[in-house]
C-alpha cells in the first residue's frame, strides 16, 4: 500500500470492503467508503457513530477486516481517543509490535459531524488526537427518513422541511470549522471522483494527528433520484461548483479541482426530487438564483 497513486490505473484493483452490506442500492456513501478503505488498508479500527453506516456491522456480519466500535451519535471521537490510548499503552508496554499498530478511523454521517458530535470532535482536535475522521455527508438524517440536518442545503425538501421553499437554513461550512482548529489535514472528497479521493486519502494515511475527511454522498433514497444517477449527480456537484474539492494542509487551503466553466447549478438541482419544488410553475425563481449566487460568490473568492 506504499505505491503512489497518480492516475486512474494506479487505483486499487483489490477491494477490501466485503460485499453484502445492507446499504441502499446506489449508495454514494458506500461508494466513497469502499474507495477509502481500499487505500487505508486492513490495519484500521473503525469507530462508528449511529447512522446509516451502523448497519454495516449488524450482528453477526461485518464487511470490515478489522475491529469496529459502535458509539452513541455524539461521541465517536471520544471513542477514538479511548482506542488510540489503548493502542498506545500496548505499544509502550511492548505488548503490541509497532508493525501491528492500527489506524483509528472515525466514521460518522453529517448528523453527527455537523451537529451533535461537533463538540466531541472539537475536543479531539484540541487534544491533537492521532486519528482519521470520515464524515459521509448525505445532507440529512438519512437512516431515519431524511430529516434535515445542519448539512442540508438551502431549499432542499426533507421529511422535516416539506414546505414550498424547502429547508430555510444554509449548509454549515464544516470544512472551515474543522480547519480553524488547525489539524494536520482536512479534505473534501466525493466517490464519483475516485482519483482525487484516493490521492487525498493516501496523503492523510501517511500523516499523524487529526486528519479530517468530508465525503459528499449522493443518496438516491434521501435526495430522490434513480440509483443509477449517483455518479452523474456527484460529478455535477463538482462541475457546477456546489461541492468544492479542496484540502487544508500546512495552514493553507488548496483547491484540487477548480471548475473553470461552471454549468448552472440548476443542472445539478433538477436531477433530484428534493429540489423539484424549486422548478414548479408558480415558484419564485429567486430561490434558485440565491443558490447560484452563493456558489458564484464562493468561487469569486477562490479564483
Amino acid at each position, binding site marked *: 500500500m506504499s505505491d503512489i497513486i497518480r492516475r*486512474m*490505473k494506479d*487505483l486499487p*484493483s*483489490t*477491494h*477490501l*470492503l*466485503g*460485499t*453484502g*452490506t*445492507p*446499504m*441502499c*442500492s*446506489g*449508495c*454514494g456513501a*458506500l*461508494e466513497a467508503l*469502499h*474507495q477509502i478503505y481500499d487505500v487505508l488498508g*486492513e490495519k484500521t479500527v473503525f469507530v462508528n457513530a449511529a447512522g446509516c453506516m451502523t*448497519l*454495516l456491522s449488524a*450482528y*453477526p*456480519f*461485518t*464487511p*470490515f*477486516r*478489522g475491529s469496529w466500535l459502535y458509539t452513541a451519535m455524539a461521541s465517536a471521537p471520544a471513542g477514538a481517543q479511548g482506542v488510540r490510548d489503548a493502542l498506545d499503552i500496548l505499544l509502550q508496554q511492548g505488548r503490541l509490535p509497532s508493525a501491528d499498530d492500527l489506524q483509528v478511523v472515525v466514521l460518522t454521517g453529517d448528523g453527527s459531524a455537523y451537529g451533535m458530535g461537533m463538540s466531541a470532535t472539537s475536543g479531539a482536535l484540541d487534544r491533537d488526537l492521532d486519528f482519521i475522521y470520515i464524515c459521509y455527508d448525505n445532507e440529512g438524517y438519512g437512516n431515519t427518513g431524511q430529516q434535515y440536518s445542519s448539512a442540508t442545503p438551502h431549499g432542499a425538501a426533507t421529511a422535516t422541511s*416539506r414546505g414550498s421553499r424547502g429547508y430555510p437554513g444554509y449548509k454549515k461550512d464544516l470544512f472551515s470549522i474543522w480547519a480553524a482548529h488547525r489539524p494536520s489535514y482536512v479534505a473534501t472528497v466525493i*466517490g*464519483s471522483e*475516485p482519483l482525487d479521493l484516493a490521492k487525498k486519502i493516501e496523503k492523510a494515511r501517511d500523516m499523524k494527528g487529526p486528519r479530517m475527511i468530508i465525503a459528499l454522498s449522493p443518496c*438516491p*433514497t434521501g435526495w430522490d433520484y434513480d*440509483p*443509477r*444517477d*449517483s*455518479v*452523474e449527480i456527484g460529478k455535477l456537484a463538482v462541475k457546477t461548483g456546489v461541492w468544492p474539492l479542496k484540502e487544508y494542509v500546512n495552514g493553507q487551503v488548496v483547491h484540487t479541482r477548480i471548475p473553470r466553466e461552471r454549468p448552472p447549478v440548476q443542472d445539478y438541482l433538477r436531477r433530484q426530487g428534493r429540489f423539484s419544488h424549486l422548478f414548479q410553475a408558480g415558484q419564485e425563481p429567486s430561490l434558485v438564483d440565491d443558490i447560484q449566487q452563493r456558489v458564484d460568490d464562493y468561487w469569486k473568492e477562490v479564483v
Partner: protein
Amino acid sequence: MYRIRIHGRGGQGIKMASRVLGTALFRSGFTVQDAPKYGAERRGAPIFSTVRAAREAAEGATIKERGVIHRPDLVVIADDTLLAVPAAGTLQGITAATVVLVNSRETAATWRHRLNLAATLLILPATEEARDRAELPHIGATCAGAAACLLGVIEPAALQAAIEEELAPLGKEVVATNSDSALAAFDAMAAHRGLVTEGTAVSATDYIPPSWVELPVDDASVAAPDIRAIANSVQVRTGLWRTLRPVIDYDLCGKCWWVCSSLCPDSAIAVEQDIPVIDYDHCKGCMICVGVCPPHAIGSVPEYLAQQQEQQAKSPGEHDGRDPADR
C-alpha cells in the same frame, strides 16, 4: 380482527399501501395498527408491511398484538418475483383460511400449481408492464385498493379519502393517479368482495408450535456465527434485491476496470487479470456501472428475463419459460 400482510420491494410503495389501507379501515370504524418492517427498507430489497384492524364494538378499542403477523388472513404480494425468494417470507403462516392475492402476469392456475397452497389464491392482473419492477407504477395504491375490496368492509369513498389524506403532501396529481389506480383495483376485485374472513383472537395457550426437526446441538465454536471472521458480510446475498441486471459485453469491454470497479458502491465488480467481473450474488442492480462505462459495454437486462435465460441454458428443451400447467 383482520390481519393483513403486504409484501413487495423497497420503492414500490408497500409502506404507503399499509398506511392507505389502515386509514381506510380507521375511517370505516375500525381500530387500526399499521407498520412497515423496519431496518431493511432499501430500494429493491424484499420488505413487507402489516395492518391489523379490530372492530371497536366487538373487541374494544385496543389491539394487544404487536410485531410481525404470523397468521395472516390476507397476504398481498405486489411483486411475484418475491415468491421464489425464501428470505422474503411471503408464504409464512398461510393456512387454508388465508386469502393470497398475487400481482402477476401469470394465471392463478400457474401459481396454484407452483405453490401447492391450501389457501385461496387470487391474481391481481399486472396491467402495466414495467421493465424495472422497482418502478411498477402505483402498485402500492393498487394493492391497497384490491385489499380494501377483498375485506368487504371499506366503501370506495373511504378508500379515496384515505389516499387523499396519506398522499396530500405529494401533490394533487399524485393523489389523482393513485386514487384512479386504487379504485380500478377495487372494481377489478368486485367478484370477490368480502372474501377475507376475520381471524380469531390468538392467545398463548392455543399457540401451535411450528413443526420442526430437532437437530443435535453443535459446539458453540461451530454453531455460533464467528463474529471475528473478516468481511463475513459476503454471506449475505444482496443480489436478490436486483430488479435489473448489468451484463458486460466482453467484446466491447475496454478493460478500463478502474472506472466500473471503483465506482461500484458495493465492491461487487472484481478485477480478474485486468478484466472486470460482476459478482451477481451481491450486485444490488443500482446500474451505476451501465452509465459510467466509457465504451458502453455494460447493458441492462430485466432480472426475471435473465433468470429465465439462465434456466433455459441449464436445461435446453425442457424449460420454455412456462410452467407445465400453462402448456
